[in-house]
């Protein structure tokens, strides 16, 4: 009898282990995508220039992790000046847009403009209006590489496309040699890294390849990587890490990840000289963009084929998404004040210190006037 009882206890404990196991399983499902380290310590904006306009309370926002560092830097300044708490989650563009169309956030950040069905969905939240895209943060997507003995590398769009589509598989390929006559290219297999998660960075990088060299990039594009072959890693930090530690690697990520000795490719756009991936060069390329949004929407069409001198063509623009009309009265004042600040000169100035590119004057002035009309 005693033995029996012991056995039952044992069964119970086995059950308990099973339950614990199940709990452990469910516990490992989440991950934090707000990859980058937060904020900048050296921002110099003058807090007193921020107009608060009765802004108060708390703002919730969610969206692109690509602009998280920029938002963090802005929030630091803005909160100090106006006492408004802003909580930007950086859960990804998809999550941000979903939260926006469900009315959970005051504004969303997204690295691609709203799709027509998302605009339709936003009409439910914006009474009498709809969601609009306001370009706010630009950034170069750098192509980092790790080839021993090569400190300077120039590639053009067709060569990049062929490398990432596994058509060019060795660093001593003729096409690469032609662009880099002076480099000592080793006989080394190319390990092309792309993002394993869905990402606006992939979307913009492949949009560039598709626009600049459609005959070499037969894929339709989108946030998921479509080409076959190559290696993949999660998040920009993961790709950068792999590029750093893998000999023969090449990969794409936001410029801020190209540090700790990762070298970046200069792009031969057809301009007088190959273009370096820098913040200033990215701003020049964004200046070439056209506003294609209708009404108050200011979504951009980037000119990936730009041949302007010093215009780095592989860029990413993040939008803030708000309602043009019908923003919630409780958060309208704070939202407007925050957007006014980040689109203002001081706000845009902070971007450069964080490896982002400011939006060029012609476009940002439209953004500023649109912000004033928000209601």
């Amino acid at each position, binding site marked *: 009898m005693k033995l029996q009882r012991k056995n039952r206890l044992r*069964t119970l404990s086995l059950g308990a282990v099973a339950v614990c196991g199940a709990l452990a399983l469910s516990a490992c499902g989440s991950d934090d995508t707000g990859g980058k380290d937060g904020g900048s310590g050296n921002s110099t904006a003058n807090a007193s220039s921020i107009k608060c306009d009765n802004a108060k309370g708390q703002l919730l926002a969610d969206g692109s992790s690509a602009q998280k560092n920029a938002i963090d830097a802005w929030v630091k300044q803005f909160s100090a000046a106006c006492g408004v708490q802003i909580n930007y989650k950086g859960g990804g563009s998809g999550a941000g847009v979903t939260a926006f169309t469900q009315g959970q956030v005051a504004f969303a950040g997204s690295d691609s403009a709203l799709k027509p069905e998302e605009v339709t969905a936003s009409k439910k939240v914006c009474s009498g209006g709809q969601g609009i895209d306001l370009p706010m943060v630009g950034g170069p997507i750098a192509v980092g590489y790790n080839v021993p003995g090569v400190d300077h590398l120039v590639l053009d769009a067709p060569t990049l496309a062929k490398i990432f589509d596994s058509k060019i598989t060795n660093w001593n390929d003729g096409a690469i040699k032609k662009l880099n006559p002076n480099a000592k290219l080793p006989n080394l297999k190319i390990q092309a890294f792309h993002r394993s998660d869905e990402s606006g960075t992939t979307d913009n990088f492949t949009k560039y390849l598709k626009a600049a060299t459609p005959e070499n990039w037969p894929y339709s594009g989108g946030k998921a990587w479509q080409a076959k072959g190559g290696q993949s890693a999660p998040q920009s930090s993961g790709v950068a890490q792999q590029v750093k530690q893998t000999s023969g690697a090449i990969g794409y990520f936001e410029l801020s990840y190209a540090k700790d000795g990762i070298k970046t490719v200069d792009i031969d756009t057809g301009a007088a000289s190959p273009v370096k991936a820098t913040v200033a060069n990215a701003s020049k390329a964004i200046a070439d963009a056209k506003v294609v949004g209708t009404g108050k929407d200011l979504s951009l069409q980037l000119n990936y084929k730009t041949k302007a001198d010093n215009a780095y063509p592989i860029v990413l623009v993040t939008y803030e998404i708000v309602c043009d009309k019908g923003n919630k009265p409780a958060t309208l004042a704070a939202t407007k004040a925050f957007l006014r600040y980040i689109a203002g000169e001081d706000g845009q100035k902070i971007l450069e210190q964080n490896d982002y590119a400011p939006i060029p004057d012609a476009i940002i002035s439209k953004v500023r006037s649109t912000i004033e009309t928000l209601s």
Partner: protein
Amino acid sequence: MDPMDPMDTPTQTADAPPRTLRPSPAEQKRAARGATRPGDRIFLGLSRGSGILLLVIMAAIAVFLTYRAALALSKDDANFLTAFEWNTGLVPPKFGIAVLAFGTVVSSIIAMVIAVPIAVAIALFLTHYAPRRLSGPIAYVIDLLAAVPSIVYGLWGALILVPHMNGLFGWLDDYLGWTGVFSWDQGPPRSMLTVGVLLAIMILPIITNVSREVFRQVPRTHEEAALALGATRWEVVRMAVLPFGRSGVISASMLGLGRALGETMAVATVLSPDFDLHASLLNSGGGTFAQNIASKFSEATEFGRDALIASGLVLFVITLLVNGAARAIIARRKEYSGAHA
């Protein structure tokens, strides 16, 4: 809830105050109820309530998942079961689980092949070979292994295990490359085999712990009988301990398998996923359900999430099948071993 009643009614009736007339069954029942102390009734209600709540929650989850999955599946332009693609952003969207199902099963099998023998050996060592003073600390260290979060395993795997797999991969390619399963293209070793090895380490503690408890339950008399017949220590293990513990080891393995099937972050950090089937376990590529959900979720649209939920549902079905199979095996062995589990 029902099984409770026959259990407590008779005992409570016995305690009920004596009556002159024999009460009707209904009255008897009422009397029985009345006689229970409030604490008992509250506890009964609570436990019954949580039982029902659990079922309701499970049903609600199932209904929700099925509904969302059905939404996605109705728009899938590719064959959900056989397509080698996951692109929910396309118009029309195309996604399929063939690669994920294959990868999930293969990585788990690798993990089981590596982990189960080692875990059983550790458990045997701890219960039958190791001196008592040693077995305590070792068991404690193995418990610690179970407490490491999976993302830490993932980071360790990506930063330390992956670079160190180069040697093993080269050796396998040299000697077993002709099989195709172990051929290697010299790429970074972020492949199914590496994932399998990492998963094996992760599920080792759970299998070890449960097996150890089971082996400890082997009746002393069985072992002594075997010893009396002149068996060596290994023969005792083979004839008395292993047959007795078999069903327990199987259920321990199933717990481990459950963890391996559902492991998310460690796989997502180590694997270099793509949507192709690869015969070689050494070349990077492939993917698992949980890894795919983790890596696609944050940027997914509403529809993309529905598609991911559909894939999660398939993982759920696979897990159910595996568990069912394990239960069937245990049930068949039960009368023989006479053990729990």
